[in-house]
């Protein structure tokens, strides 16, 4: 803990705002980052929007007026209804219904839940693999480092979405009768397949700098083992850029998942994400039933924008050169 620069300390603390020990909370309140944050209307707005979306997704089963997965409650007579404020709308379906009579608002809340889950899981997987690889490559050096970085070069030169499509396609043909959990696992794996490279490169760069520092030498001299040295001493010092990157990548992963689902190869159709909802609605756009597409699309853009804004702000706030 001692080795963290204050900004990173604060950032890490901000990450744990849910249950902070009192002293850390006070330290956070006094940090530069907190001051910047509370004085940046854009960052506050972004966090507010993101929190509303996450909250809505998290509590979907309690917030949603209907259960879109319960076929028993669906009534085809209620299909194609416009939002409540339009002439034919009904108050029970605030944002209208789709072709199967599903309530758009409920489908939206559940869809955001799936989108967020896939996005967060794939970023978590990428961070785990990428940070580990980067630490090892930067610290061990030599042939291992050279080989890993060559691999990264190759992977970075291919666009994420293309690789994800391909991995997902292969995964589907390997397990043609994949049940839901497996289908999600394949999707998350496909999204992380190239993304871990970014973390690996970033962490490797910082590790190269850190390992020459005196605290590493000191820790070695007192006989700290390699694994512990990496985990407890080097790791906390290289996490700053990872935090920024991960924030931005959550937005990217959500958009990538939506794209795959829109193309019809993402989440299984029984669990529609925002992308699936947009794809369904796209067929009715020409018929003038805009609400089936527009609301999920707006939610997706809102989430992606707020996360991107937050990432941008965090990058500037943690960059000492811009202070």
């Amino acid at each position, binding site marked *: 803990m001692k080795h963290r620069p204050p900004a990173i300390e604060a950032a890490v603390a901000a990450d744990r705002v849910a249950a902070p020990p009192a002293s850390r909370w006070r330290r956070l309140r006094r940090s530069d980052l907190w001051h910047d944050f509370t004085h940046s209307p854009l960052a506050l707005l972004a966090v507010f929007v993101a929190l509303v979306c996450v909250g809505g997704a998290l509590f979907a089963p309690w917030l949603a007026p209907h259960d879109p997965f319960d076929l028993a409650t669906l009534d085809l007579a209620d299909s194609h209804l416009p939002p409540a404020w339009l002439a034919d709308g009904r108050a029970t379906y605030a944002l209208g219904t789709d072709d199967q009579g599903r309530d758009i608002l409920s489908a939206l809340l559940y869809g955001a839940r799936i989108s967020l889950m896939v996005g967060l899981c794939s970023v978590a997987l990428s961070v785990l693999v990428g940070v580990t690889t980067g630490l090892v490559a930067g610290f061990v050096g030599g042939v291992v480092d050279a080989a890993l*970085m*060559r691999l990264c*070069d*190759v992977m970075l*030169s*291919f*666009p*994420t*979405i*293309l690789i994800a*499509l*391909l991995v*997902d*396609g*292969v995964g*589907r*043909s*390997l397990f043609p009768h994949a049940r839901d959990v497996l289908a999600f696992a394949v999707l998350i794996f496909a999204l992380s397949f190239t993304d871990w490279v*970014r973390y690996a*490169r*970033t962490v490797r*760069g910082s590790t190269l700098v850190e390992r020459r520092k005196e605290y590493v030498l000191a820790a070695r001299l007192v006989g700290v083992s390699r694994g512990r040295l990496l985990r407890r001493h080097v790791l906390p010092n290289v996490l700053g850029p990872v935090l*920024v*990157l991960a924030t*931005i990548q959550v*937005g*990217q992963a959500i*958009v990538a998942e*939506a*794209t795959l689902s*829109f*193309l*019809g*190869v993402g989440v299984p159709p029984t669990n529609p994400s925002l992308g699936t909802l*947009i794809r369904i609605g*796209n067929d009715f*756009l*020409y018929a003038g039933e*805009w609400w089936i*597409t527009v609301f999920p*699309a707006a939610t*997706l*853009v809102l989430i*992606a*924008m707020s996360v*991107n*804004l937050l990432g*941008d702000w965090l990058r500037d706030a943690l960059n000492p050169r811009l202070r």
Partner: protein
Amino acid sequence: MVWEDGGGNPSSYPMRPPDARSPEVRPGAGGRDSRVFSATMLPFILRRLAQAVLVLLVVGMGAFSLFQYVGDPVSNMVGQDATLAQRERLRGELGLDRPAPVQFARFVGHALGGDFGVSLRQGREVSVLIAERLPATLELSVVAAALALALGIPLGVYAALRRRHWDAKLTMAVSLLGVSLPTFLIGIVLIEIFSVLLGWFPSFGRGTTVQLGGWTSGLLTADGWRHIALPALTLAVYQLALVMRLVRAEMLEALRSDYVKFARARGLPDRVVHFGHALRNTLVPVLTITGLQLGGLIAFSVITETVFAWPGMGSLFIQAVQFPDVPVMAAYLCLVALVFVVINLAVDLLYAVVDPRLRAHAVPGEGRR
């Protein structure tokens, strides 16, 4: 796909060539030097070529393993009631009973000749299918790239020169939207506005095409241009925002540099300083990244082509993924890898040609990582 460091960091450029230490190339011997590929460049070129071949081999192995593990070609070819002996004989005839390295060598041999077998879904030669679809994708990508450059560079320069004014800030905010919006949503919005509401442009297909030898072109008819407008714009939006933000960042960097200060001190007019000095030095990274993004355009065309029912390679690929149609997937994978490797190689070599510092004297601390 966003450059995480805003594009200003040299580490995001492709690998640079080692600094040539040839005594006959003096520092500052400019781009018009005929000894562009000096003798010391040769090892660099050879190494990059070897790397390119290696990458292609690795991708080829990936494609080959698709055939190995996804589906059984024999059961695709014979009927339900074929006996085990018949299957074994066919297996022998196809060479599927030989060791994997031998099969891989055969696969590479066929792939070099452009032979990827027959599509499982359409029952036609994969190479013919791809050759039919290639012109549509290439025309779309090139038009989109031209659009992104033609709009992105001026907008970026404008945003950099007027960075404290509200209009430049607004442009930046809009460009953030352009980077955040998913490609398929941009396509849907454009269709909704320009096809459904206004009825100006058609929303699917290539329109009237002209046959030029083996190449079907949509760029020779007015109808073709009307059809390409929306897909090309959709594909260009992300690149446009990226180019703009990159040009702005590089321009701001250049405007702070010593040579611009010096140019101002010499009393040169703003126009000369901005365009003759600052912009010129900005263009190298911009062209590099645009070059690399050309591959990205081909990748994103998968989405655009699906939204606009554009009959290109991307929609062929997505159909193959949904089916799954292994030969088409493998061929597309190899083709895209080839395009990427060639682009990367070309950009690396051009980099050495354009930037004399990379050929001339050694810069301490720079060079290969």
